[in-house]
């Protein structure tokens, strides 16, 4: 399988001129299409920073990131926003839906930004919300949904643009165990049945064991990379 993500000597240093903090330190890795990868490590190990760098949300201090062979480290900001829209899906910890939009509108927003037709948007929104088991909550606003339901809408939204991969930063951190399990089941199913590539960060042992590949970070460095 081809690599969707490739990082070469990736480094992110905060406060480089005063007290340098190496959030990500010389990380080189490849993630192939269809992988279900867990980024693990203690708090402050650099999981979120690495995900932000891979997702083009932050700029590295050194190194290169290639997404589907395209170097995104030198990309101008506006192009990068458009690149994210077309190629990358995001699921954040929680409270990441637009509160004034309904579940369906949250999912539709991404396709609207992609300038998809109304018919296409409506069809895919319905399809995605059915897929995450929330067809009956289409017209609910985030405040009317539980934390688990909100994260499922976030997964549907991340899938809406048909991205090359989805980055999920601690997607189960604020969920109870049942909701967390439910969300992971959906992610596993999408990975298995639709070959969606997932890279998610976590420090929850129950989530870690679901990862087919587990990359462990400590102090910004990869200390282990295991495949199950």
């Amino acid at each position, binding site marked *: 399988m081809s690599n969707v993500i490739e990082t070469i000597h990736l480094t992110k240093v905060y406060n480089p001129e005063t007290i340098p903090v190496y959030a990500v330190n010389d990380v080189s890795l490849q993630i192939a299409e269809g992988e279900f990868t867990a980024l693990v490590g203690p708090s402050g190990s650099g999981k979120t920073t690495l995900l932000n760098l891979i997702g083009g949300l*932050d700029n590295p201090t050194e190194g290169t990131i290639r997404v589907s062979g395209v170097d995104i480290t030198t990309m101008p900001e*506006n192009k990068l926003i458009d690149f994210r829209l077309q190629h990358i899906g995001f699921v954040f910890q929680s409270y990441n*839906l637009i509160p004034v939009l309904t579940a369906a*509108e949250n999912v539709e*927003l991404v396709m609207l*930004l992609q300038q998809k037709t109304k018919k296409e948007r409506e069809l895919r929104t319905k399809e995605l919300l059915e897929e995450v088991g929330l067809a009956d909550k289409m017209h609910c606003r985030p405040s009317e949904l539980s934390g688990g339901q909100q994260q499922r809408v976030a997964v549907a939204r991340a899938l809406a643009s048909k991205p090359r991969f989805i980055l999920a930063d601690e997607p189960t951190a604020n969920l109870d165990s049942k909701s967390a399990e439910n969300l992971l089941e959906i992610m596993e199913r999408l990975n298995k049945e639709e070959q969606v590539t997932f890279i998610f960060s976590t420090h929850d042992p129950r989530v870690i064991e679901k990862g087919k590949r587990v990359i462990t970070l400590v102090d910004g460095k990869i200390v282990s990379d295991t495949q199950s």
Partner: protein
Amino acid sequence: MLFKIAWRNIWRNKTRSIVVIAAVAAGLFAGMFMMAFFGGVVKQEVETAVQTQLAHIQIHHPLFPEDKGLDYAIPNGMELLQQLQTNPVYKGVSGRVITTGMISSAADAAGVEIQGIDPETEQSVSNVFSFIKEGAYFTAGKKNEIVVGQKLADKLRLILHGKVVLTVLDRDGNLTAGSFRIAGIFRSNYSTFDATTVFIRREESAALLHTGDQIHEIALLLKNGDQSDQQARQLAKQYPGLLVQSWKALSPEMAMLSSMFDQIMYIIIGIILLALMFGIINTMLMAVLERQREFGVMMAIGMNKVRIFLMIVLETVLLTCAGIPLGILFTITAVEYSHRYGIDLSGFSKGLSQYGIGNLIYPELQTNMLLPIIAMTAITALLASLYPAKIALKYKPATAIHKM
């Protein structure tokens, strides 16, 4: 979708948005009501000047305004007067003999302008007859009557039917005097006019001044007052040897007040909107700072900066513009009510009467000013949105997403 997000965002914090909307409505109400009030004052002042003193157009001998000499009568004035009286454009046409002289009573004396008029035709160009407080505006069959203003009557301690003496220089330059009986006392909205102008019959003034059938002034009141300049130009072309002036030329200070009024009002409304702008900036800034995380998510999922910028501009404009119909509604209601019943300023009547303004002010909203005001408010909203939008554009998605 941007419109939908912007509109729904306004109602996320109802109290805050209602306060801004109320502030915009109150600001617009204050500005527009003030505009209607002063519009009413200016209109009243102009109307007083036109209807009481000036009429819409006056015709004179070209040299008459310089020294008001009796020699400067309108050539063939009576003929011209009769000719103009048949023109349907005019509501009223009246000829006047005008001179200055001294009025004396047993108590005191004062310098006045004496207007020799034909009471019947004069009523069609001047409303002095409607301001008679005591007596009558001349009595049919009676001779040597004079109508004076209240202020002059007070000064000279004149009483109705009492006698006064008018002393003037006749056409030959001889000092001459005539005795007149007070037929009526008027009190117009213009106290200076009341103190300095007296009216006698034209034929009696001609006998006193030895002017025969000469007249010095023809006053014309138009059916459509807006055409005064146009009609004056037309008459001037028609009678090149005469001086034809519209009320604006006769009283340039009044014309200037009338034309300056609009500009002054726009400046006042601009100041109100400027103050409102800071309130709107403050509210939008709070909204933008509170929603850092949301902007971070939007940028992360692919909403570009142009769309973020437009969303904030749209939200600010919608928030501000929601106050416009309310402000207009309040203003129309208040202006309608006060226009019907008037605003009583009798406490300031002494001061107001010096400027030809009555005790009751009738505010009048100029509907042609509504559109510019709406545009000014929308521009204010647009300007107010720029700073909060600029702040939002500075957010970096990686850090903004993790803000609580």
